[in-house]
């Protein structure tokens, strides 16, 4: 683990987020925009569900043969003139990248958006060694100015409002006229474009992530809407691709299947604006492009997820649909999750990468409503995997004592159906009687966590199971 994690403080983070008016206003944009756009894009393509199945199958097939596809990929990168480096963990990846930057005599490094680079904390490492990293994705640039982590994997600054961005630009772009008008978002964009254009042209090394690596051709693929990932890789002399082992796909055809579900699930576009397939350094006749091409392949705990129930998480293509549809994410935003990956995918992946002892709160921060799984383009059973983490947490005695005894008490009854029915019937009867006047409770023993914020509705006197039985008999009769 490298980037400092506040995942153990999830509850405090969440409480703070719920009381942050700016954040709550910004989170409204997530609920409105992403869900409708994805729904419309999916509806326009009759084959969308079949493509999701295909995407899942391609990823499963690749993971089952990952060693062999990695070998094939590595050989292709080398034969096209590129270099492949392997990093077991974040420390190794950072040192490899620093070494390449030093060999290139780099003073500044431009960066395309890469969640893996957040995972290994490369910016801090470069800065500490006298190299200036410049984030070029607009959202990443904004949060870099603020010294924050992304709060969303495809919309890193989604937690901010335009006025906050304006303040940051005025604070940092001090070479510009202090009286300039920045009241419109387009003015902010134009300013960032001009500032970053100079950085692109001056950079010595460009670092991008990869959405996919293609074994057939030794190709790395990035997807952007801004074009920043392209300027990052074609202008400097050296292009470094930073990717984790599960980005592999067999062929260009397989990549094309996955690309058909990626943009639709992420932003609701038919296709992102720029999908770029990069293979090796520039050819001898080329007029532009990088002279050196390096790929750093990171494991960082992923190979140990293979062959376990968490292998399914390695299908993830980082579209962000799960968090866009998550009521918990909508309520608290991405920073509350406390590390690099937020939302349901983060709740499953983070315990794998930094340990369930630190990130145990995350898989518990779910209502199990199932929307994440229902929109996942590679059909990852996110609620099931979150439940697996809860089980492991329980087995390892990481769950607090009150929760443990509560669960054990419930488990005692749940394993004895007759007793369970009797006990719940008795409890519902008592509560119905006690609450018959007002129809709700302002206070209940052992339920202060609920009644502190809202009333608890009084039961009608019948249990769910009893009503189910009665209505089903009624329907049959």
């Amino acid at each position, binding site marked *: 683990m490298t980037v400092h994690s506040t995942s153990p403080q999830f509850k405090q983070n969440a409480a703070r987020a719920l009381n942050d008016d700016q954040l709550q206003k910004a989170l409204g944009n997530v609920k409105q925009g992403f869900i409708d756009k994805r729904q419309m894009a999916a509806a326009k393509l009759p084959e969308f569900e079949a493509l999701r199945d295909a995407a899942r199958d391609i990823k499963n097939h690749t993971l089952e043969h990952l060693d062999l596809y990695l070998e094939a990929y590595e050989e292709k990168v080398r034969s096209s003139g590129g270099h492949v480096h392997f990093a077991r963990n974040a420390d190794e990846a950072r040192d490899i990248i620093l070494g390449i930057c030093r060999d290139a005599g780099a003073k500044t490094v431009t960066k395309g958006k890469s969640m893996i680079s957040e995972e290994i904390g490369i910016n801090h490492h470069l800065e500490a060694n006298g190299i200036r990293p410049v984030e070029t994705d607009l959202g990443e640039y904004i949060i870099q100015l603020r010294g924050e982590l992304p709060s969303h994997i495809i919309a890193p600054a989604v937690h901010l409002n335009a006025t906050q961005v304006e303040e940051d630009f005025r604070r940092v772009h001090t070479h510009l006229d202090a009286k300039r008008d920045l009241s419109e978002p387009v003015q902010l964009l134009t300013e960032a474009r001009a500032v970053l254009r100079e950085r692109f042209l001056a950079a010595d090394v460009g670092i991008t992530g990869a959405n996919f690596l293609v074994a057939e051709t030794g190709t790395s693929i990035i997807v952007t809407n801004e074009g920043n990932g*392209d300027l990052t890789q074609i202008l400097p002399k050296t292009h470094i691709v930073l990717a984790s082992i599960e980005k592999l796909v067999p062929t260009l055809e397989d990549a094309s299947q996955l690309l058909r579900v990626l943009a639709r699930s992420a932003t609701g576009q038919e296709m992102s604006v720029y999908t770029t397939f990069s293979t090796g350094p520039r050819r001898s006749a080329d007029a532009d492009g990088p002279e050196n091409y390096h790929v750093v392949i990171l494991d960082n705990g992923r190979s140990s997820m293979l062959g376990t129930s968490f292998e399914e998480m390695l299908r993830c293509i980082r579209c962000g649909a799960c968090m866009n549809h998550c009521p918990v994410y909508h309520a608290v935003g991405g920073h509350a999750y406390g590390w690099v990956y937020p939302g349901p995918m983060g709740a499953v992946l983070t315990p794998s990468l930094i340990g369930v002892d630190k990130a145990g709160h995350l898989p518990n921060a779910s209502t199990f409503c199932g929307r994440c799984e229902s929109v996942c383009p590679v059909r990852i059973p996110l609620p099931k995997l979150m439940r697996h983490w809860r089980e492991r947490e329980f087995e390892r005695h990481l769950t607090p004592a009150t929760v443990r005894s509560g669960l054990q008490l419930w488990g005692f009854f749940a394993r004895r159906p007759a007793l369970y029915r009797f006990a719940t019937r008795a409890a519902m009867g008592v509560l119905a009687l006690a609450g018959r006047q007002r129809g709700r409770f302002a206070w209940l023993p052992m339920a202060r966590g609920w009644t502190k914020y809202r009333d608890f509705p009084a039961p009608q006197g019948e249990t769910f199971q009893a009503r189910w039985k009665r209505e089903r008999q009624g329907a049959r009769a």
Partner: protein
Amino acid sequence: MSARDDIFANIRRSLGVKGSETIRRQIVADRLERAPKGVIPKRGQVSGEDRIALFKTMVETALATVTEVASPAEVPQSIALFLRNHNLPATLRMGEDPRLQAMPWSETALEIAQGPSEGRDLNAVSHAFGGVAESGTLAMVSGPENPSTLNFLPDNHIVVVSGKDIAGDYESVWNRVRFAYGKGTMPRTVNWITGPSRSGDIEQTLLLGAHGPRRLHVVVVRD
């Protein structure tokens, strides 16, 4: 043990394999060789005029503009008109593409510059390797003919695509790339471009011209 060997060993331990199993190797070699296509949306599986019409519709859906000319000889006039209509200067940068070089640029007042962009050009023209009707996507390949910098640095990017190079789906373009470069071999960069550059990073508001071109204009040549 090197990091590489360690990672491979851990992957194989987790998967419960040795890596030498003939059947697994055969399955992987076969997939890499055959490159099966998967699910191809019906939308793009149309031909002739219907395919061109779909391509144009999808290009516009992606917020680019598109026009059609009857022959390569008409391209320079069409581009000059586009620049004039948008009050843009009569300058144009291009690579060494023989198809572009053969066009009668001297019939226009355009000032032509050659070679890759260094970031100060307003307008550039490139010739596409192909187009994809399914999503209105242009497929660009790198090389001295069409330097990749022209796809990203100018404010206004004009792309010429031959009607016969517009395919229904991405897979057809990959077949042509394999035919042109050899199976398993790629040019340095293939760019799929679907509309002009944009960002939604500020309050989820869609704004055009983030880092790449603010305008993308496509000229379909019917020959």
